[in-house]
């Protein structure tokens, strides 16, 4: 284990601790409503995301290529963007209620990555991962990653919508409504996030298609599980946007679509794929 690897691994370990701490503090704030807990939770998320960026940067320096050739790197990148998008929702809508979910998910993604196939630090070199030097492949990965992060937060907002709607309809547990963001805010946030994620997903799919048909990948990619799942995910979020904007479905129905979307995204992220090996 060389010194460089130790640097990124140490930064990532500290990041994990900060994400967990942030999730616990923001979760506790939901119950206790203490401004100190909220500020500390947000601080942990902010320091975590900065440290995570440093960990990813160090990893790039160590392996001399973009950091997404194995599950550990890919999931770490996704986790980082999820927290980044969460901080964006905090700025826009003060959605601290989604903090425990976003930070908890990022924590689990990094852990899962390590369990699934984190490399031991040797990594693959830039020379052995020539695809990563292509801009279109980088665009493909970054568009998917950002779309996934937006969909993850949209899922969280949709879940909040379903819970809040149930509380307001049943009139039980109304005390919780004072701890959660307003119903219309979570609905607007879930729509905005899905509306941002969908064009990015489309861009990611198009970039992948262009790269695939431009040659060198054979025809295996056409029936690759990741490719097929990407179409399914695109269909789900397309249906959501059509239902929300065109057909004017009730918000509860569209919220359920977003709840279906994230598990599909997770499957897309984690399913093994021969056509999506960059190293």
């Amino acid at each position, binding site marked *: 284990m060389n010194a460089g690897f130790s640097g990124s691994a140490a930064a990532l370990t500290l990041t994990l601790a900060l994400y967990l701490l942030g999730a616990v503090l923001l979760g506790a704030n939901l119950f206790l*409503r203490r401004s100190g807990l909220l500020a500390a939770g947000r601080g942990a998320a902010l320091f975590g995301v900065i440290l995570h960026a440093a960990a990813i940067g160090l990893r790039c320096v160590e392996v001399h290529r973009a950091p997404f050739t194995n599950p550990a790197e890919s999931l770490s990148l996704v986790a980082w963007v999820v927290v980044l998008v969460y901080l964006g929702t905090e700025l826009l809508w003060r959605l601290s209620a989604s903090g425990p979910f976003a930070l908890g998910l990022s924590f689990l993604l990094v852990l899962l990555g390590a369990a699934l196939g984190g490399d031991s630090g040797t990594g693959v070199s830039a020379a052995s991962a020539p695809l990563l030097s292509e801009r279109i492949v980088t665009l493909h990965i970054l568009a998917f990653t950002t779309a996934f992060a937006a969909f993850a937060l949209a899922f969280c907002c949709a879940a909040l919508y379903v819970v*809040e709607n149930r509380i*307001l*309809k049943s*009139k039980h547990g*109304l*005390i919780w*409504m*004072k701890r*959660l*963001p*307003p*119903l*219309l*805010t979570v609905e607007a946030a879930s729509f905005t996030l899905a509306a941002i994620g969908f064009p990015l997903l489309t861009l990611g799919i198009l970039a992948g298609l262009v790269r695939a048909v431009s040659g060198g990948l054979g025809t295996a990619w056409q029936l690759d599980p990741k490719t097929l799942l990407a179409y399914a995910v695109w269909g789900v979020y397309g249906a959501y946007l059509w239902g929300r904007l065109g057909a*004017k*479905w*009730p*918000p*509860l*129905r569209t919220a359920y679509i977003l709840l279906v979307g994230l598990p599909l995204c997770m499957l897309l992220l984690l399913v093994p794929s021969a056509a999506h090996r960059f190293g």
Partner: protein
Amino acid sequence: MPLRMIGLSHHTAPVEVRERLAFTAPGALPRALSYLEESLRPLGAEAILLSTCNRTELYVATSSATDLSGEDLAELLVGARDEPGAPFLPHLKEKRGRYHVTEHLFRVTAGLESMVLGESDIVRQVKEAHAAANVAGLSGSILNPLFHEALRVAKRARTENDLGRGAFSVGHAAADLAETIFGSLQGRNVLLLGAGKMSETTARHLAAAGAASVLVANRTYDRAARLAEILGGRAIHYDEFPNHLIRADIVIASTAAPHAIVHRPMIEEVMRARRQRPLFLIDIAVPRDIEPAVGDIDGVYLYDIDDLQQVVAADIAERRTRAARADLLVTEEAQAFAARLRAQEQATPLVTGVRSKLHNIVDTELTRLRRRLPHLSDADWEAISLAMRSVENKFAHDPTVKIKEFAAAAAEVDSLEQAAVKMEAVRELFNLTVAAEGERSP
């Protein structure tokens, strides 16, 4: 300097007694303060009269030489109202001593003694009572800091324990619920069906929370117009209200109709027309104006009077828990303030004692010197006097500062005994015979 409070409140007296001893009518408080000023001026005492619809309390601080008995205080309070005292006597409650009076005032100001636990109006009322006493020249070096401290502690207790959170009334609960659905009510449209008092109160809460426009529909158009004018809204004809449901975000129904006037098919159609924007329906009419099945429609949130009353009850229960925490804080603050007050009471005569002892020594020495040196000119004597007084002041400066420091340190309850020992040492050093006044804190 004894501190006293005498008065009655909703805890001790029914409304028919409270209203007879209230000073809330126009001109009643200035008249009462003028009476108190005349009565207390010869005693050099301070007083503040707090009068709300639920309590009338007189706070008095006197010098130790002119302590007032409970009967004196009762006579003073009842005399200020110009009422015979006998009917009030069984309901009057007295608090004596620094700690007990301080703690009571802190609790009252924080809303912990209010009929509606945690209500915030009392803070304004205490502020106004203090200001009125100030104008009348009744409050001074004892009651001013006490009331300033009460307002500070109330702010702290309320902020740290969220005492103002939650609904205090049905109207408040409706506005709170609207905010949990819509967030800010800025730009939201309110439609009132019926022009009753309750819907007016609820609409006022919504307007105070920022609702943009209020439409009023009533079977009698004139009543709708009158209420619309009061609320700064617009009256519409009763049979037009279904068309206005499309634009409305919040509907308050309180008509006297004997049966429901809003039905499920009507709202289903409205929801389609309003492209599924959420609709908050508040039905405070009995019998209900809105068919209960309307609440099953997606995006429609229907609350009747019982639902809202349950919200208020739940909020009150939660507020009780927070009030228990605020209670602890108020007790700690009252102990600290009473300790500080006690230390200051001990410090003031001590400082005066040290300074007057030095002054007397200088006076004696100057007189003796004048006898021994009669040939000196007036200018010489003036120079000598100035020099001696300067030595006196410089010598007194350090003990004065130290005594004040001991008194300030006594603000911490734990340091109280230590401060007392130090002040006793100063008293011994200067061989002062001045005894500390006042009572001990618990």
